[in-house]
C-alpha cells in the first residue's frame, strides 16, 4: 500500500516529464490497472500524453491489477489487488471498438502481437520519411 499524498509529493510526475524531455520516444506503451479507466477514456489519456509528454500513446497494456478506488478517495491510499485474467480479457474485449491503439494483456501471446504492432508502426514511420 502506498500513500497517495506522498506519491503526489514524489515529484508531481515531474520525473517522468523530465525524462520525456531527454529522449524522443518512437512508440509508447501505457500500463493501466483493469478497473480505473473506461474504454472510452483511453483516447483522452492519449491526448493528455500528447500535450504533457509530447509522446502519444500507441499501446495500452492491461495489468491484472485493480485499484480500490473507494479506499483511494476516502483514505488517500492506493491499494492494488491482483485480479483474475478473466477481468483483463473482458476489458480488452470492451476496448475492441477503439481504433488507433493496440490493446494487450500481460501474457505471452499478446506481447508477441505487441512487438509486431511496434515493428509495423516504426516501419511505416520510416517509409513516410
Amino acid at each position: 500500500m502506498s500513500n497517495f499524498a506522498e506519491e503526489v509529493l514524489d515529484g508531481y510526475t515531474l520525473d517522468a516529464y523530465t525524462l520525456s524531455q531527454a529522449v524522443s520516444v518512437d512508440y509508447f506503451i501505457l500500463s493501466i490497472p483493469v478497473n480505473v479507466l473506461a474504454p472510452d477514456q483511453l483516447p483522452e489519456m492519449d491526448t493528455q500524453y500528447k500535450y504533457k509528454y509530447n509522446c502519444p500513446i500507441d499501446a495500452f497494456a492491461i495489468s491484472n491489477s485493480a485499484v480500490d478506488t473507494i479506499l483511494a478517495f476516502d483514505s488517500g491510499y492506493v491499494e492494488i489487488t491482483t485480479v483474475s485474467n478473466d477481468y483483463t480479457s473482458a476489458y480488452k474485449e470492451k476496448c475492441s471498438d477503439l481504433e488507433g491503439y493496440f490493446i494487450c494483456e500481460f501474457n505471452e501471446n499478446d506481447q508477441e502481437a505487441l512487438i509486431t504492432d511496434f515493428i509495423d508502426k516504426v516501419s511505416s514511420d520510416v517509409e513516410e520519411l
Partner: protein
Amino acid sequence: MNCIIYPCSNDVIPFIDYINSSESELQIVKAVCPIICRSMIADDICCDVVTDFRASLDECDTVIICDYKRIRSMYNDIISKINLSLEFGKNVICCAELKDDDLKKAKGIADEKKLKFEYRQQWDYHEVKCYEKQESVIIGIGSLFSAVNTDKLFCNIIKKLNECGYKTVGIGTNSNNMLIDCYSLPDKIFTSVKRSDEKVLYLNDFINDVELRKCPDIIVLQFPRRNV
C-alpha cells in the same frame, strides 16, 4: 554459474524468469526469502523458494543481493548476508544500495579472499556539453500508477525483441536491471541535480552513453513512478 537470490519478493520474479530462460551465464537455482514473506511469493516462480539462507549457500557459487522496495528496513540483515556469503567463499552481485563504509568493507573482504564483488552501476557527476538526439528507436513504457508494476512487461519486451534479432537494451527504474544486462536510471539525477534543464541534459547524456556503449537497434525505456 549457480546462483541464489536474496531477498526474494514478487517484484524480482520477472528478473528471475528472464535470467533462467535466457542464455545468461547466471542460473538462479534458489530464491531465498525471510520466513515471514514465504506465503506471499507467487506460485509461478521458476525456481525453488526457500527460507534457509545458510543451507542454500552450499548449493551455489554466487549470491545475488537484489534491490527491494523496503530494503532500508532490512539493511542490517542484508549486510550480514553479504558478509556470510563472502565468509563462505561465494562471489556476490549486489544490486541493493550500500552505505560507503559497508561497501568498502565488503570489497575489502572480497579482494582479500580473491572473490568477485560486483556492485550496482554507479553514476557520478561529470561535465555535460550538449543535448543529442538518440539514433536508436525508443520504446517508452509508462504506468498510470506507480503501484502497477511494469517490470514484467519491460523484461518480456526486451526478451522478445532480442529473440526477433533486434539488439535491444533496457533502461529502467529498477536497480535489479543490471542482472539482465540492462541499466537503471540513476536516482541521483532526479534527487541531487537541482535545475530541471540540467536534469534533462544529464538524462540525455546517460541514455546517449548507454547507446554509445551497447550500439542497440532499440532502447526500451521505463518511465519513473506514475505518469499521470
